């Protein structure tokens, strides 16, 4: 028992919640349900993201084997997980795709990015003002293990090239461009 206890690790999970009653509870329930021990919840009410969401930072203690389940349960509950833990998603990068994004099979595009180099599409926004069979834009936030972002971007480029889409990349890996 004590050995089991000593193997728990703490993780920081960053969420973005809709500004609606009950959302925080909906986000915390799956953590407890999957054996996560809540250490702290930092609820930044009043500090909205550009899309009107509320950033929440949760420190969770759990067995490393269970952490994946916690994150999966959050995502299954449609909770927007921006960052989960330190190692698994060490880096994030945001890219835009433009062109016939939707009618070139968007889910195939996303699947192929997900299947590469341990990358994960943690957020997707779509804008198709001319309709889904015309030129549209998508914003993808990708998370990958440290050092794998370049591979993830290379996959995005390759898929985009094949589907005649444009990729608009950040100038440097996230945070590289000084403000």
């Amino acid at each position, binding site marked *: 028992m004590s050995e089991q206890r000593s193997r728990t690790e703490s993780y920081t999970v960053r969420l973005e919640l809709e500004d609606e009653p009950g959302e925080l509870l909906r986000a915390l329930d799956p953590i407890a349900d999957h054996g996560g021990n809540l250490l702290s919840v930092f609820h930044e009410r009043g500090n909205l993201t550009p899309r009107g969401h509320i950033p929440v930072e949760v420190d969770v203690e759990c067995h490393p084997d269970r952490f994946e389940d916690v994150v999966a349960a959050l995502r299954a509950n449609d909770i927007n997980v921006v960052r989960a833990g330190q190692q698994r998603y060490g880096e994030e990068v*945001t890219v835009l795709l433009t062109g016939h994004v939707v009618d070139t099979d968007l889910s195939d595009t996303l699947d192929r990015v997900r299947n590469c180099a341990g990358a994960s599409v943690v957020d997707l926004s779509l*804008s198709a003002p001319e309709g889904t069979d015309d030129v*549209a834009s998508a914003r993808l936030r990708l998370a990958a293990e440290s050092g794998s972002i370049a591979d993830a971007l290379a996959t995005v480029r390759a898929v985009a090239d094949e589907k005649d889409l444009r990729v*608009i990349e950040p*100038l440097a890996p996230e945070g590289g461009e000084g403000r």
Partner: protein
Amino acid sequence: MRLAIVGAGAVGRAVADLATSHGHVVTALADSTSAAVDPDGLDVSAALARKDETGRVGHDDPERALSADYDALVEATPTTLGDAQPGFGHARTALERDRHVVLANKGPVAERYEELMALPDRSEGDVRFEATVGGAIPVLSTVEDLGPERVTAVRGVLNGTANFVLSRMAAEGLGFEHVLAEAQDLGVAEADPSFDVEGTDAALKCVILANVLSDGGYTLDDAEVAGIRDLPGSALDLAAEDGRTVRLVGEATREGVRVGPRLVPENGTLAVTGTRNIVQVETRDAGRLNVSGRGAGGPETASAVLADVGRLPA
């Protein structure tokens, strides 16, 4: 110094206009069909007035400007690609006459760098080209002062027209064609804007920077270039939702040249608005330098030309 100015567009005219206030004398001024030459110093305003009235600066053959009496030739003819003529030939003629050359014309420096830089070896004259990158912004002299070997990369927003279009698209939620038409009405974009919006102009500037960093080896063909013509407004909307925006950014390193629309933080250093340009110089020992200002325009570019003239050995 006595200056001969070849090219009487916005830059050549502004150089002629401002030369006196910098203590120089203009002994020749040529456009594509004529020249005005006076070894004692031209009446610049008369020549420019004649240009306005008749389309010609003078009555001489344009070639006469190249053989006139001068210490430095200012090459301000339109940028041409490939063989970079007639600009390259003008520079060669002047250097073969042991005269200095100051270029505002990007063609020879981007497309024939090694040949151009070999010319001063057999000449008493020097060649300088500050005005080819970043208009009034001292980009190349900054790199020169630091020492190109101590600069690891130069990147920036180097085309005011493209930046104006992107800023307006983001601020007003308007489409590319609409904003471009507006830019043309305002005189910010030319009737044929392809050089600017397809990234060629920014790429030429980055090729010049890469040549300076690597002591040659690059032409426009070596640059990876994407423009902004097919950028939908929805892309800028999505970027803005996330606190970002899109800028046409050029990057020059010893590994190559890349120009294309890139995501940058909305309030970040590179997100300059309107026709403003910005250049970031990454240095080995001194971190990052940011220099911004007006990247185009007659008097702005002329100020860079005249700064180069001031750097020439007397």
